[in-house]
């Protein structure tokens, strides 16, 4: 076909330039999430003077970083309209394999982190192939992979607690403070976050992720390589979950059985509270950041309040439902 008529600079160009960037409205979900963060901070300060102190807040951010890295992977998968329930044991695999690699000598020590992440990517690929090519619902595939990962780790550790120690690099990333006293873990999360934002907003991969989440059929029919994108997304999620495990192992100086279990539900909750629709296609990373911080603060305020364990669970659930009722509701049939 002939080329489109020669471009002329006229008023039509204002369309693209004018409206796109200006006046991007703040997503109400994100506003509410940050509002709740403020609320939690205020309530927390009633319970303990040091709640608002910089040291404490920085500590909270450091702890939040681990969840943040994991939630980043979860967000990409949820944007597709899928879910990754293999997080608990992929996190464990990351930690355990990294610490195991450390025990293999000096080369092992250097390769510890990549080995951990690599195992996560491999498991993520299994998820991805199952969802993208075999068209198995992600909920089931990731559950099965979770079970397999658990089985592998049980065999690996012989049923006992893993004894390997973390490499110095791992500990440095997780616990050190360079750069004006900012915890390294936070820097790591920051880097991961920036990469994620770039991936989602400026690359074809990211565009395709949102399109698939909106309507996979349309994306497929428009020529997008949907299967590759889905598979890669799960691989990324697996890698990030494992990376989270590596960091956790670095923080505690060793891995532990079931170390990933406490991170699955909070990861999902953080993503959803941040305004990402569980059905996919909508959501921004800033929201996920807010969600992660909110969940972390919520957990710490509950322990500061010295609430009994049962109260924590109940509050946790109630808060999630309450927040979603405010801004996560679906549409009425009549709309």
């Amino acid at each position, binding site marked *: 076909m002939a080329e489109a008529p020669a471009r002329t600079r006229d008023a039509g160009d204002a369309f693209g330039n004018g409206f796109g960037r200006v006046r991007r409205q703040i997503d109400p979900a994100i506003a509410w999430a940050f509002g709740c963060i403020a609320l939690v901070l205020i309530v927390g300060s009633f319970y303990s003077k040091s709640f608002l102190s910089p040291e404490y807040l920085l500590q909270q951010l450091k702890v939040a970083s681990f969840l943040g890295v994991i939630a980043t992977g979860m967000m990409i998968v949820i944007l597709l309209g899928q879910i990754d329930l293999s997080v608990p044991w992929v996190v464990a695999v990351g930690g355990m394999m990294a610490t195991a690699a450390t025990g293999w000598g000096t080369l092992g020590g250097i390769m510890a982190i990549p080995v951990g992440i690599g195992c996560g990517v491999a498991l993520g690929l299994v998820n991805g192939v199952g969802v993208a090519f075999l068209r198995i619902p992600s909920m*089931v595939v990731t559950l099965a992979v979770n079970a397999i990962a658990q089985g592998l780790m049980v065999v690996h550790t012989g049923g006992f607690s893993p004894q390997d120690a973390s490499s110095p690099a791992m500990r440095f990333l997780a616990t050190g403070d360079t750069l004006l006293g900012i915890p390294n873990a936070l820097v790591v999360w920051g880097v991961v976050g920036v990469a994620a934002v770039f991936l989602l907003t400026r690359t074809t991969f990211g565009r395709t992720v949102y399109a698939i989440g909106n309507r996979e059929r349309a994306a497929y029919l428009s020529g997008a390589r949907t299967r590759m994108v889905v598979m890669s997304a799960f691989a990324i999620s697996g890698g990030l979950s494992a990376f989270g495990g590596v960091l956790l192992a670095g923080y505690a100086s060793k891995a532990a059985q079931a170390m990933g279990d406490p991170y699955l539900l909070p990861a999902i909750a953080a993503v959803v509270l941040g305004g990402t629709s*569980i059905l996919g296609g909508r959501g921004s990373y800033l929201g996920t950041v807010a969600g992660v911080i909110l969940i972390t603060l919520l957990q710490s305020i509950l322990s500061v309040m010295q609430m009994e364990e049962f109260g924590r*669970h109940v509050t946790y659930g109630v808060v999630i439902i309450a927040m*979603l009722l405010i801004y*996560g509701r679906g*549409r009425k049939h009549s709309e």
Partner: protein
Amino acid sequence: MSGDWAYRLREHRGTLLAFGGFVAMFAIYATNHPAGLNANVATTAANKGVLLAIVAMAQTLVVLTSGIDLSVGMVMVLANCLASTIVVGSPLTTTLGVLGVLFVGALCGAINGLVVIYGRLQPIVTTIATGAIFYGAALALRRVPGGDVDASLADALTGQLAGAVPASLALLLGLVVVVWLPFRRSSIGRAAYAVGSSEVAAYMSGVPIRRAKFLAYLLSGLLASVAGLFLTCITYSGEASAANGNTYTLYSIAAVVLGGVSLFGGSGSAIGAIFGALMFRTIGDLLFVFNVEPLWQPLFQGIVLFAAVCLGSARLLRVRNRLDLYG
């Protein structure tokens, strides 16, 4: 009339496959069990299987409406803890206790239903949150494992009838007859299938969507509490174990998939899910029977689970037009 039979066969294909699969697995299990197939072996196997089967039934009801209930395991745990507290004492208090447990289960289901229907929240996130709430309640009841349950009730449910047939199977059959069949046959049951198939079409056709969904969630909670009660009868105690709750939730999803119920809603039957659950449990027991080292069992279970869901969800083989896969 042969066309009619062919259609019926295709419609219930999932259930029939699950049934066949279970029979095959159990045959292998029974023939290889070191103690042979006697009443006690059957009863122990049945008890474990029935427990999962009941939870799978609960999950099916919600999945049919194209939802998911990630709190079934926690409702079961809550019922377990509650039962270990109130299902004790005289026959009167025991009966009241049972009713109380069932009531709480139905209440949990109702809460799920109300939030999903009137809150218009997605089931997956809702039930994650309510699961946490139910677990908190369970923890409040039983901070440490303990409690007891009326002995005669427990024996009746976990023992044998007429010395041969496991009583748990009778319980399961009873639940099917009292809960599933009436649901399936009623117009509300059919409405539930319609909702799962296409909520928009159901809405346009004037189907009572809200009532159907509510009933599905309510019954799901009720069945989950029956499972919890049964668990109490097996273990004679109540324990707020999050691990257990999560495990049963996840296994119920696996059982549902194995039983030919579509996770997207609108097709499948609780009977299929029951066989899926029984098959799943039997596979686990098979590993024990074949003397697989305990260390390797979790791995094998995981691989089997993976293979099973691959087969259970194999839409690839049935689809003529690739485009349908993306529908």
